[in-house]
């Protein structure tokens, strides 16, 4: 068999294995007959082993045949010849996507093995793995995406499963509130992505990355856009990446996302999901290079996030928030590296950081034991050395910085007060105006819902004695 034949056999399996897993788990849940814990765990394991083996095989083919770009097209779903529009699912295997997809399989595999024991006897066991399969499919689709539509589809799956997993314990209110918050940020940034996609179609008449970034394999492509076009599209994509990777000013959601079971926090917000924004920027790297201003913005945003993350991580007094903020510092740095025109360095940085952070988050509950062991080894209480800049700063400024870090940079407050509140205010005002008009026209109270009174807590089930 030639390399091509093997590739045509195993390539589709990389995407198909998570898709089949999702279909199986999802159908079982829809039919109301979820699998037993053991079957669920076996299915997940099987899907991941198949996916991982196939992606390693593709890697081997690429290394053996010294080809740096292999692609796979699945069907022509929509063809509009007049508009020069074709919608296909296209997956490319290159130096960016193969490491990323292998990383996804390895980390998801480890975490699923962890979760299958950790969530034993949990009522939401099956639900967790349905969302997990959704996430895995999203991760694989977006890492391998060869068109921007495919990338967007995977991106959305990742967003949906992340938000639902934040609200995993939906019998309490905070996970739900925080899940909604994550979802809202994702929606805003996804809207930017969507607009960017439409613009790209408008400019290049297609969503294929080859059209957009040239046919040379990553990272050597060259964008076929003017620097103005690159700037506008790039800025929109930067907003999309900022939402997904929790860059400034969206960074407030990451610490809040630590509501789900520990393994989901680890895999989503520590390891994979949070790097997806950086991945997007890496993917469209050639486009960034078209505009110096864009590169500068990317670097600045990354650096700002990194500084903020490092500051915030120093003051968080609970382990999961501390790790979330520490993740931010590294993700920010990775984005800054991309902005500086580096390609392989950020990729290595992502892989290393994802592995390290997953391990740290999965071990987070054992922190007390670790601290105790360290204290015993060192023979003293652990001391915290302050960095060199700290004593040099005047007290007043140190206090301000501390408060800035403790309040997580005020980003949430600013977004709430300067965007969400005025937004809601405007609509409330419109609502009031409409009511005035309809009342005026009807010559009396015109809304049935007003008669029901304030939607306070309903006097529930008077407990019968």
């Amino acid at each position: 068999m030639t390399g091509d034949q093997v590739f045509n056999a195993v390539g589709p399996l990389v995407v198909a294995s998570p898709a089949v897993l999702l279909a199986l788990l999802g159908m079982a849940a829809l039919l109301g007959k979820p699998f037993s814990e053991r079957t669920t765990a076996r299915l997940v394991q099987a899907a991941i082993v198949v996916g991982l083996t196939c992606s390693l095989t593709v890697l081997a083919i690429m290394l053996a045949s010294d080809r740096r770009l292999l692609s796979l097209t699945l069907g022509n779903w929509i063809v509009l010849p007049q508009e020069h529009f074709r919608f296909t699912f296209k997956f490319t295997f290159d130096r960016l996507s193969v490491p990323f997809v292998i990383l996804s399989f390895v980390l998801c595999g480890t975490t699923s093995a962890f979760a299958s024991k950790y969530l034993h006897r949990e009522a939401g066991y099956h639900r967790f793995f349905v969302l997990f399969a959704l996430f895995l499919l999203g991760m694989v689709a977006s890492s391998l995406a060869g068109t921007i539509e495919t990338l967007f589809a995977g991106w959305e799956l990742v967003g949906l499963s992340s938000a639902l997993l934040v609200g995993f314990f939906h019998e309490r209110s905070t996970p739900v509130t925080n899940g909604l918050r994550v979802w809202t940020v994702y929606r805003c940034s996804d809207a930017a992505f969507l607009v960017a996609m439409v613009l790209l179609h408008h400019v290049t008449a297609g969503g294929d990355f080859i059209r957009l970034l040239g046919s040379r394999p990553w990272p050597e492509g060259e964008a076929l856009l003017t620097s103005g076009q690159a700037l506008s599209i790039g800025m929109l994509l930067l907003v999309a990446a900022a939402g997904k990777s929790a860059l400034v000013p969206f960074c407030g959601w990451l610490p809040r996302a630590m509501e789900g079971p520990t393994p989901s926090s680890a895999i989503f917000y520590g390891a994979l999901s949070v790097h997806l924004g950086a991945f997007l920027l890496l993917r469209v790297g050639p486009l960034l290079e078209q505009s110096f201003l864009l590169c500068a913005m990317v670097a600045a945003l990354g650096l700002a996030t990194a500084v903020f993350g490092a500051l915030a991580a120093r003051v968080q007094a609970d382990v999961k928030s501390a790790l979330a903020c520490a993740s931010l510092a590294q993700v920010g740095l990775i984005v800054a590296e991309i902005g500086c025109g580096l390609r392989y360095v950020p990729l290595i940085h992502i892989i290393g950081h994802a592995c390290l952070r997953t391990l740290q988050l999965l071990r987070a509950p054992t922190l007390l034991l670790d601290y105790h062991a360290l204290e015993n080894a060192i023979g003293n209480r652990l001391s915290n050395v302050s960095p060199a800049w700290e004593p040099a700063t005047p007290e007043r400024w140190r206090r301000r910085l501390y408060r800035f870090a403790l309040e997580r940079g005020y980003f949430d407050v600013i977004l709430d007060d300067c965007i969400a509140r005025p937004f809601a205010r405007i609509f409330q005002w419109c609502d009031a105006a409409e009511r005035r008009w309809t009342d005026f026209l009807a010559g009396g109270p015109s809304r049935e819902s007003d008669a029901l009174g304030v939607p306070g807590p309903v006097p529930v089930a008077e407990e019968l004695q």
Partner: protein
Amino acid sequence: MSTVEIQRSPTNSDRRRSALPSLERLIEHAAHLLPTQGPISVFVHHNTLHAFEDLPFAEALQQAKQVYGCEPYLAEDRYRAELDRGRIRCDDLAVVLQDDLGDRADELIGLLGTRFHLRLAMLAHPLRTAPNEELRWVIAETDAARRFRRDVAPDARRRVIESTRRWIMRDFRNGREHLAVAPYAPQLAPILAELLESFGQGTIDQWSDATWEAFTLQLLWRICVNGAGASAPTRTESPLRRHRDLLLQAAGEDADELTHDVLIRFCAAFLDQGLAHWGLPNRDRGLFAAFVELFGSRGGVLPHWLRGLRQELVRLRDENTQPLESIEESLELLGVGDDEREPFISATLLALRGWAGMIWQLETNAEWTARPAPRGTLVEYLAVRLIVERFALAHIARECLGYRGPLRQLRSFASRHGSCSVASGDLQRAFVFFQLAQVLGLRPEDLQSLPENTWSRLAAEIETFPEIERRRVFQLAYERRYRNETLDAVAAHARHAPQRQARLHETAPDFQVMCCIDDREESFRRHLEEVHPRCETFGYAGFFGVAMYYRGAADAGFRPLCPVVIKPQHYVEELPVFTCEESHRRRARTRRLLGVALHYVHRASRLMIAGALTSAMGALASAPLVGRILFPRSAARLRGLFGRFVRPPAATQLLLQRCHPAPGPDDGHVGYCLSEMADVVERTLRQCGLTSGFAPIVVVCGHGSSSLNNPHESAYNCGACSGGRGGPNARAFAHMANDPRVRSILADRGLLLPAETYFVGAQHNTCNDAVDYFDLDRLPLVHKSRFSGAVCAIDEARRRNAHERCRRFESAGLAVTPHAALVHVEERSEDLSQARPEYNHAGCAVAVVGRRASTRGLFMDRRSFLASYDPTQDDEQGTILAQVLAAAIPVCAGISLEYYFSCVDPHGYGCGSKLPHNIAALLGVMEGAQSDLRPGLSAQMVEIHEPMRVLFIIETTPNVLQRTISANPVLDRLVRNEWVQVATLDPQTKTVCLYRNSRFEPYQPESGELPAASCSVDWYRGWRDNLGYASVIEEEWVAGCDATGAAQ
């Protein structure tokens, strides 16, 4: 802003000042309601409702429900499920109900039977209820008013339908109601007319059975509706204390959500024990000052609801307002009157009870922590809390209710605004009548003629037996079933105790093992005795009388190893033996280097630039990641292999004897003097009754537990060692008892330890069932073969113990072999992903204090604490008993009650599911990203527990026990108020007396039979659930064991 404007007049502020001391007392008083769990690294089981111990159990639960809003018992449906599966029997319910009602049981309720029957029906049949709209829908759209409930017996159903049919056909057919002879209620006529109309009066002769059933029920329903209208409801609403409650009711917005968001982050930063790398500025000036400095300075952004906070804090700082004054001022501004201060302050503190409780613990009870809180921190916290709360309240009142007036009138405004009309409850009452009438088999004919006062009486009767009372009765029945089974089993088994004792003492046993009284050691001891019938076991609190501060060779500091109630006087240190000192020093240096490096990596991974460097190496982390999760046991072995190079040398000794007179932590003061050692050994041996018949080998076995990813790890360790591991205590005890100088002192005191008896210290790991022995190098060689015999038996016993434990773990198959079971539990203790390394005390329900002969060979399913005590060696006053019980009752009660409360309400009293736990400030766990600190036990720890008060069975006479208990106020309180159940087992006659209604009453066994099994395995094999008692026949095993021994 309105909250800030205060009218200041000198008289006002003087009055305020004079009230301050009483305010401080109020706060301190309220603090006792807060959870008393300290930092989680020293987890000690205690009664969750310790503050209510002065009240009888049932009453305390009722009050606690109001204070904390937590469930006092399991849900009614859970009890009914237990009733269905036979865990509670109907006669348990009947007996308990009869006892509970006493003389009032037989009172007649109108024509409806006795109170006893009414209540029994209410217990046996679930009475559903719902809001008005739902009830209307249920009546109109479902079969509820057309078909009898399924739990009504078919013949009762037939009787009611047929009598109704005859009544209607006789008196009402063809509109002849005016001819009726009997005095019918006036409102019946229109109802009947309408009903007959709707069912088709013309075809009444052809009505099918189903139609008659529907007709009967419709009639019954309408009569009940009428009756409910006639009965007068009596209900009292619990008053809402806090502004936040009223606002939540009126506006649907929770002010606490806003307040807590600020407070949790700030409290965590303030209390942090070293998790954050950058501490709170001005922390040493106290919580209030730190808050004022941080939020009162320029250069920050405040959320819109906190606008004005800075000015307010600046004003407080400028006026130099003290925290108490600030509280006083806030209370005034909130319009809290003097009479309601106490409940208001309690409710306010309890709103964030985990953090408030931790502040109080750090302030009063945790001088050993890295950063204890200064006195008065709780007061400062309350001051800050009230300030922030004022802003949150004003904001919500303004935004949602448009209220801009002063806060002191907010409550009256909100209660006016939100006086959501509560439905009268007529419909609900009618529905309950309707269901009761069905299950009691009442006929519409009888009901329609009930006078109004009978309906009211019935309503009142139902109201006096509300859900919580029903659950209380269920709980009593639940406890009664297990208690009777236990007492029957123990009484039946104890009858043969003298024979067992005699047989054992024919010759000296081969070896003796002294374990902790822990319920987890029950199975270990049972298996050991099965494996090696010529051994004897004892139970003593796991610190073995050695109350000490201990520092291991590789430990940074001393930690207390004794029950929390004792403050140790002595210090003990572990040191390497002389020849290993050099390698010890070398290894300590390596450990230190490695530790510093690891700590650096740990810190660096959270920084920016250093973090990038560590991340670059991060791919290396995938090796431990994959290894430890997919192959936990092999990874642990590998780590153990590498760990060998840095671990302190195996050969160490205890620095146990001091030369200076005063004990202390410094050089020369560490250790005990000889007479103190003799005291310890004498007390312990006398208390567990081991004063003669010594075996050549006595293994003293402490216990501990090792698990990963488990913030509650110390809860799994020995409760008698303050949540530490009891091995060092066992080792120290063995040392003391082996010392010939100590023995000669003991001989002078009349306690003769034979020269050939040798004590060996050991530690049983209850998670992976390993047993480690200490100081074997000193074992006299003459004992070598005897000792290896003991080790052989212990090894087999721990395999079987692991096997018995595995039956509760679903991830271990029921067909697992003892060896595979041991591998399984070893893996559990090394597995990062294991949320249940072991089940800890789950299931504990009994504590037996007495000679082992009474319980030896009795399968107790790991549910019993076993303390050894020999009544024949005690004096008539029960001096020894008093010492044993003074430790045993509070410890066992604390464990059982903590399990009880965490089990009946895992989210209120317990700490909820373990899965989203997040360690905060190194002090406790939060749920998810940010929440209140959660004390108590996790849902995973209590999932197989049966919540019951522990039953003490004490081998003594009622008189002695009564005296002993009344002499000790702590025990008296627990026993008299029924926080524990107590029974005596007569040392001679083996009859049982049960403590009820403040006295001991003879207990009549239900059955004298006890199932027998040839070995424990035969009894439990194939079962996951709790198991009943059985007597394990020892003789069979003598032969069996010899065979196994020969095979090996």
